[in-house]
């Protein structure tokens, strides 16, 4: 019924993402961290993180991802994993591999770490090292073997874009050779640094279709095979879709992200949304944040929706899509995700894809502290 609203029911924050630090030894051009990361310095202490994990576990959190930045840059990571394990979390280390020495791997195993997600940038050394602006390809191979030696299930994650989409077959071969249980082929979504570099990363529809065909062929070959195998997830890029993703499975529905400075967010990109007044775990309890904060209630349910979402019969399926994407492209976070062909702004997405090849004279920007400060110059600084 047009204009009808429902009182949103508040579920449980089943997924906790602990972004321990925004610091990272890599400089990936598609990083989704906020581009102002260099201005966010006041990282939480070990005791504050332990408190966060205890509170969230009581509220139902079961999956816990340690992420960043590079979480291995925190020397209290082992301590945090141990506490998480004691609390009954299923723990995941989301890492570039830099800093995962044999000694630390053993300590993390002893602490009870459940699995590791290792990022690769490409199947070739040249492109991996170029895109991350580091010499890390060989190191990642060594780390992958270390992960298997410790009997962790390994998720290999590779962010896809026009430079490595033609290598998807090789990337799959590499994942199989390294005995990854899961390969996540995540097409670039355009937030943070990836938004700045979108023209350089944007593939054509044909490039995407070819890569997807390679993935489907591999899946067909795997069908019916017994023994260990690599499951491939292919995350399609929003800009090439006609309907938006069910972002975060709905705002404030199951996902809780805590930034290095204690900012609590319903999505790890929400920092950039204007007017949200995001709460901070340093001064507010997680129960209060999850259940009663304005920020977590801002896009729950459907009463915030405008046309066309408001009356759309798919609104409880995709929840209007991604709020951050709506804001980045339309300037208004309450708009329908413009990825949706029903959005009056959909043509903007079409143009972003179409114009990308003509805008590649703009320099590519590697993520770094210096670039971050340039992009977010403080007045009077």
């Amino acid at each position, binding site marked *: 019924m047009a204009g009808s609203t429902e009182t949103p029911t508040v579920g449980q924050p089943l997924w906790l993402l602990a972004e321990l630090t925004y610091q990272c030894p890599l400089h990936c051009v598609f990083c989704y961290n906020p581009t102002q990361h260099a201005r966010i310095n006041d990282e939480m202490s070990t005791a504050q993180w332990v408190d966060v994990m205890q509170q969230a576990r009581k509220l139902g959190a079961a999956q816990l991802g340690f992420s960043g930045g590079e979480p291995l840059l925190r020397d209290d990571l082992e301590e945090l994993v141990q506490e998480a394990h004691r609390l009954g979390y*299923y723990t995941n280390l989301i890492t570039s591999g830099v800093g995962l020495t044999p000694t630390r791997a053993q300590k993390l195993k002893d602490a009870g770490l459940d699995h590791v997600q290792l990022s690769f940038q490409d199947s070739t050394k040249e492109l991996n090292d170029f895109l991350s602006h580091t010499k890390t390809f060989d190191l990642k191979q060594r780390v992958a073997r270390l992960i298997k030696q410790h009997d962790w299930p390994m998720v290999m994650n590779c962010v896809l874009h026009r430079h490595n989409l033609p290598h998807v077959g090789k990337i799959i071969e590499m994942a199989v050779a390294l005995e990854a249980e899961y390969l996540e082929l995540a097409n670039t979504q355009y937030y943070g640094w990836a938004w700045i570099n979108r023209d350089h990363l944007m593939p054509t529809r044909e490039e995407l279709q070819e890569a997807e065909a390679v993935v489907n062929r591999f899946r067909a070959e795997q069908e019916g095979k017994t023994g260990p195998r690599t499951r491939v997830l292919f995350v399609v890029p929003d800009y090439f879709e006609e309907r938006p993703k069910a972002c975060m499975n709905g705002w404030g529905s199951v996902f809780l992200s805590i930034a290095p400075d204690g900012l609590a967010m319903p999505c790890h990109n929400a920092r950039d949304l204007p007017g949200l007044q995001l709460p901070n775990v340093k001064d507010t309890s997680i129960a209060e944040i999850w259940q009663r904060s304005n920020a977590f209630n801002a896009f729950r349910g459907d009463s915030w929706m405008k046309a066309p979402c408001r009356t759309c019969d798919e609104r409880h399926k995709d929840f209007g899509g991604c709020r951050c994407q709506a804001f980045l492209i339309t300037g208004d976070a309450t708009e329908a995700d413009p990825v949706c062909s029903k959005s009056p702004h959909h043509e903007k997405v079409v143009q972003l894809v179409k114009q990308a090849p003509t805008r590649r004279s703009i320099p590519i920007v590697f993520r770094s502290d210096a670039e971050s400060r340039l992009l977010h110059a403080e007045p009077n600084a």
Partner: protein
Amino acid sequence: MTAALSERPKLSRRFRLQYEEAQSRWVLLYPEGMVQLNHSAAEILQRCDGERSLPEIVAELEQAFNAQDLAPQVQSLLEEGQRRGWID
């Protein structure tokens, strides 16, 4: 194509079966995922320890729940579990 069920089904070490107080139910945890189990699935999977045989699991469940002819239900859950990688 489905491979034959193991004589003594065993929960894969890649999955963790755990009771979640906050949800009042058993779940299977695995990399980046969680399966929320119904009561009967949880009862079956708790007995998949690689020691009990399929008929033993069925007999135990029939006794515990004072029920009969549970074999088809157990068989079908285990087949699904195997397809989804829960069962070795």
